[in-house]
């Protein structure tokens, strides 16, 4: 087998078949020899297995962050696409709003609270409640996306058990969102109730919350949550559903604002 580097490669002597076989074996052997698990990996494998609740907390590598950032960018792109797609539909829906207003909605929009939200000039009025609504959205959906991406295999060194406290932030975010959302609805009940996109958004949120609850229940049922033996596929499906639902809910929420 000749050594390459000649200025006339066409003149080289071809290797014999046994030499080619040796080259294949040698290449693979050298590749595996080049990559050996370090003692640190052994130590982590042992400690992770024996202390599942404390497992994998040092695993937030640069790669995981890049994956998370890329996923977030992809999600934003999807939202953008959805906004462009639904924009046409929303514009049509807005022109159909004809004030189908029931007595309850009229009463709701004339309450003192609704008038204060609409007329208050302080930062605690409409803008403050809108801020709380956005904050609640960020907490609920942000935490949900973290769990979803972990279920899909991102940042796999972070143990699932370590993610369980995140659900608390999800629920706090959801409660904040629901309360502030109810107040914003009261301020403009007749018009919001007449918008089909608003109903669509509420349905998506209901499904998103149901998926979130199912996921939390599954993780709690898996003992410490450190491993998900037997329920990986179900959790993967739930995570994909959750990502799609929250993306659509955010898009619908923004469109409601644009069409009122």
């Amino acid at each position: 087998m000749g050594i390459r580097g000649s200025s006339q490669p066409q003149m080289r002597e071809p290797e014999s078949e046994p030499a080619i076989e040796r080259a294949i074996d040698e290449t693979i052997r050298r590749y595996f020899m080049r990559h050996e698990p370090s003692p640190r990996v052994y130590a982590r494998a042992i400690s992770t297995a024996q202390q599942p609740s404390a497992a994998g907390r040092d695993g937030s590598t640069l790669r995981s962050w890049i994956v998370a950032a890329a996923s977030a960018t992809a999600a934003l792109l999807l939202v953008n696409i959805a906004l462009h797609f639904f924009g046409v539909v929303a514009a049509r829906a807005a022109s159909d709003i004809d004030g189908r207003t029931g007595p309850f909605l009229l009463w709701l929009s004339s309450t003192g609270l609704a008038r204060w939200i609409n007329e208050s000039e302080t930062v605690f009025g409409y803008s403050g409640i809108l801020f709380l609504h956005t904050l609640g959205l960020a907490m609920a959906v942000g935490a949900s996306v973290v769990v979803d991406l972990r279920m899909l295999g991102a940042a796999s060194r972070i143990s699932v058990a370590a993610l369980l406290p995140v659900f608390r932030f999800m629920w706090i975010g959801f409660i904040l969102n629901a309360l502030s959302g109810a107040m914003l609805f009261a301020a403009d009940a007749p018009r919001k109730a007449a918008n089909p996109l608003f109903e669509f958004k509420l349905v998506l949120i209901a499904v998103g919350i149901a998926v979130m609850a199912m996921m939390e229940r599954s993780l709690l049922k898996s003992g410490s949550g450190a491993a998900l033996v037997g329920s990986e596929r179900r959790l993967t499906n739930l995570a994909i559903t959750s990502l799609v639902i929250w993306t659509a809910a955010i898009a619908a929420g923004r469109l409601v604002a644009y069409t009122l």
Partner: protein
Amino acid sequence: MPTKSPERVSTPRVTDDELVERTLRGDSTAFGELVFRHGQAVYRAALAALGSATDAEDVMQEAFLLAFRKLPHFRHDASFKTWLLTITWRRALRWRHSPARRLGRLVSLETWFSGDLAEHRPTPEQSAVSEEIHRDVLRLIRSLPSRLRDPLLLSASGRYNYEELSDILDIPTGTVKWRVSEARRLLRAKLARLGHGRSS
């Protein structure tokens, strides 16, 4: 999380089955010994499936975690090593097909089966084969379909026999042998087209 190398208990004559029993009885050092015994085989299987050292480390950790949790259900139908490698292979394949990993590969600088072979000082044996042919072999292995590449890499890694590969890959032993042979034949033919060796 401790990252220092844990102490290894010297248990040269203890079988895997005995270590499994001791682990189930709560002996924490016994599972550590199993990790030391089979860590390299687990890592190489993951590396063969994923072609990435970082991903292989992740899968190795997950495989041992799963094995520890599933240990009460280990029925001794196969050896502990085969059972462990089957878990590893399934985890690696799941990770290989994961959407998050595919997304991660787009932003990762690490390519499949990457490796600068020239960074090692070649032994006399290694010197027998030129670096150029190594690079071509690596590139061609990368282009093989996974059903041929997986058995080829696993068989050439030097850690598994054909029977173990049959269990890990969940295909008959004869099929494993045929796929390894077919992978080699394809590699030889492609290498011949690149000017290495004589076409068969």
